[in-house]
């Protein structure tokens, strides 16, 4: 019944995005499908895995209303291999007919009535967020979020909305990243968004498409236990994590036994090189020499050998030694793009802090490794 025309490129992008959240569902096979349906002059493509749902509107010419659900992978792979020309989609008796240039295809599908209903959330938060800033902020905190679900409250990113700013926090209890975005917010309460959702949000924000050019801000909608991200022509709805995020502000130290301002690229390079020589627990040792204004970094692996490097910087405080897991350090430095990085050292029972010099909005806190 349905009959529409659209451009291959637009359709391809929509299918690729929608398909990403489709999982291999053995219990309910229709979840492996995408829903295609005409909606107010556009084609709406929907997908869900029952935790996240996506609605993606594609512009086109609608001749007849209607819809169908078809297996996601087949449709997406097929369309992406077509030339960038006009595509004609027709639905007749649960079969999707695709015509493009000299390609003709039929894909068997199911009635739209069988497909789960993606909830509609109508209450906006009125906390508009700039897409670009949010994308950068989320990517700076998502890396440290706990992967395991044993502590559900930290398996997502905290959105701590305050009157004049938003704090994004991600942690796995060994390291923590906090990003502050200045924004006027009507809604002022904390919510925790699952990390899979955040990964998808970042990917959508990173898409270079006309919508993101046209519409620079993102709207959020909230319902009990659910959140919807409205990107313009894409809506993503996700569950929220129920629980209390730990009181993270307490752990960010303000005092340091020693502190250093180092050249970020230089220290990053040193850590990468030394990681080859690190021991079983991925540890590398930092030795701060306050008088000489140097930090010596040392790594040793009994089987391979050892390596030492030195870096100069503005150093204050007492001489000291502390060891870290180099992976956590590189993760943190990865998110710092300023020329210099502030490094606050503490002894092994307290966290250390990395901050970009000149950018007040980001803090990376990391617990050291206890000396062997």
């Amino acid at each position: 019944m349905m009959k529409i025309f659209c451009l291959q490129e637009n359709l391809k992008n929509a299918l690729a995005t929608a398909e990403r959240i489709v999982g291999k569902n053995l219990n309910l096979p229709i979840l492996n499908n995408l829903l295609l349906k005409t909606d107010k002059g556009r084609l709406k493509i929907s997908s869900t895995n029952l935790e996240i749902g996506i609605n993606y509107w594609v512009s086109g010419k609608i001749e007849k209303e209607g819809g169908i659900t078809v297996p996601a992978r087949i449709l997406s792979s097929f369309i992406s291999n077509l030339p960038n020309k006009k595509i004609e989609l027709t639905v007749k008796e649960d079969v999707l007919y695709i015509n493009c240039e000299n390609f003709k295809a039929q894909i068997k599908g199911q009635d739209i009535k069988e497909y789960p209903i993606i909830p509609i959330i109508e209450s906006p938060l009125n906390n508009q967020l700039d897409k670009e800033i949010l994308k950068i902020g989320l990517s700076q905190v998502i890396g440290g979020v706990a992967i395991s679900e044993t502590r559900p409250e930290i398996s997502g990113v905290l959105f701590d909305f305050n009157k004049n700013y938003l704090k994004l926090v991600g942690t796995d209890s060994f390291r923590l990243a906090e990003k502050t975005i200045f924004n006027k917010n009507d809604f002022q309460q904390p919510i925790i968004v699952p990390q899979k959702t955040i990964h998808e949000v970042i990917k959508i924000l990173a898409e270079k498409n006309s919508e993101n050019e046209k519409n620079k801000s993102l709207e959020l909608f909230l319902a009990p236990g659910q959140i919807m991200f409205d990107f313009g022509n894409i809506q993503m709805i996700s569950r929220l994590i129920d629980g209390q995020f730990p009181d993270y502000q307490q752990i960010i130290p303000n005092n340091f036994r020693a502190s250093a301002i180092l050249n970020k690229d230089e220290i990053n390079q040193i850590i990468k090189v030394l990681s080859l020589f690190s021991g079983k627990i991925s540890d590398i040792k930092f030795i701060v020499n306050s008088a000489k204004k140097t930090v010596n970094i040392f790594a040793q692996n009994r089987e391979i050998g050892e390596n030492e490097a030195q870096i100069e910087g503005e150093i204050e405080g007492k001489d000291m030694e502390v060891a870290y897991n180099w992976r956590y350090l590189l993760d943190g430095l990865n998110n710092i793009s300023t020329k210099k990085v502030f490094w606050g050292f503490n002894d092994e029972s307290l966290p250390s802090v990395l901050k970009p010099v000149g950018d007040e909005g980001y803090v990376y806190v990391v617990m050291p490794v206890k000396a062997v």
Partner: protein
Amino acid sequence: MTNEELWQAALGEIELNLSKANFITWFKNTGVLEKKDGFATISVPNGFSKEWLSNKYQKLILKSLRNLSPDIKNVDFVISTTLSSSQIIPSSPNISIQKYTEKQPQLENQAGFEEFKVNKDTNLNPKYTFDSFVVGSFNELAQAAAKAVVQNLGTLYNPLFIYGGVGLGKTHLLQAIGNEVIDQNKKRVKYTSSERFSSELIYSLREGKIDRFKEEYRKIDVLIIDDIQFLAGKEKTQEEFFHIFNALYQKNKQIILSSDRPPKAIATLEERLRSRFEGGMTADISYPDFETRLVIIKTKADEKKYCLPEDVLEYIATNIKKNIRELEGALNRVMAFVQINNTPPSIDDTAKILSSVIAPPRKLISYKNIIKAVSEFYDITTSDLTTKCRRREIVWPRQITMFLMREELKNSYPFIGEKLGGKDHTTVMYACEKLNKEIETNETVQQEINLIKERIYNTL
């Protein structure tokens, strides 16, 4: 039929009408949240389920429910992220949405943020567990009740009221329950003292955040409050506590309380609270016997890797009878001695070390202290006690004074009679005998005497 049983039966009928795939996907983690006035509210885990169930299966669900409970006229769906206490639908062998639970590559020496460890929500100390709780005849009832509660949250003994003297293990037991529940069932547990509860309440009232306070407490699955006797005399706190208690109790959420005395003996406790406390299970912890004390001391010595001779341990266990904390304190004192002098102590040494702990100096009091304490306690004047007045309100305190003077000061009967307004010595004898009998049979009288004694010795 409980809500759970009702839902289980309804699901049985629904299952027959759906494909297995649909049944498992949409009805997993659902339950009956509430049934009131013909309305049944079904809790569903997420928005997708809510949409699907309300659009596609509402009629079927209503029909199945009505077959079991004809008073239900309408069905409503609510997203509730807390699971019902028992998973009614067993997970199918091919789990559709496999949770990504890859173990964090945890390196042994990597330290974690301290504040994340002691869960700030629950306030539980992980060192208090059932394993580290030594059981003896004096506390086996309390311990058995505690363990049973963990297996049957909210349904078996609710509330569980544990009382006993100081330093006998109440807090240990309460926290052990909390820790065990979190380990086993991952429920929401909150442990707090009634004093903290009270100050949080007052703070919330002052800041205007009282709704948030109430919400927070009503979301809990297991509420544990230590030293509930401190609620006595605090009306507003008791009232708030009463509402929270009811809200939780009606939802079959477990409540556990501890106190230094049974509910009956908590003065100025609202009657409705008292009756609720008594409506559950009350278990007391009395004083440990010698064997148990010895076991406890040995366990603690092992824990701290102290090596002490057997007779020293026995000496400590023999002489410190009433307080497990004191046992631990004595053990520490002896150990300190060992570390300073590098030799194991003999019995005589131990006796010396512990002399101040075992027999604390008795405060010297006179009959005047007794008279003053009793008259303050009963809110009468000291001269009332010495008059000829035979009114019950005066006679009873007078008899108590006589009893106490005899027991504490070992004064002679004639002396007591003389000091209390020229009463005959036989009057005093009668009073002492009567009180002795009362103490044996009447717990309230025991409590009164104890409280008065506390007054006497503590307000010097």
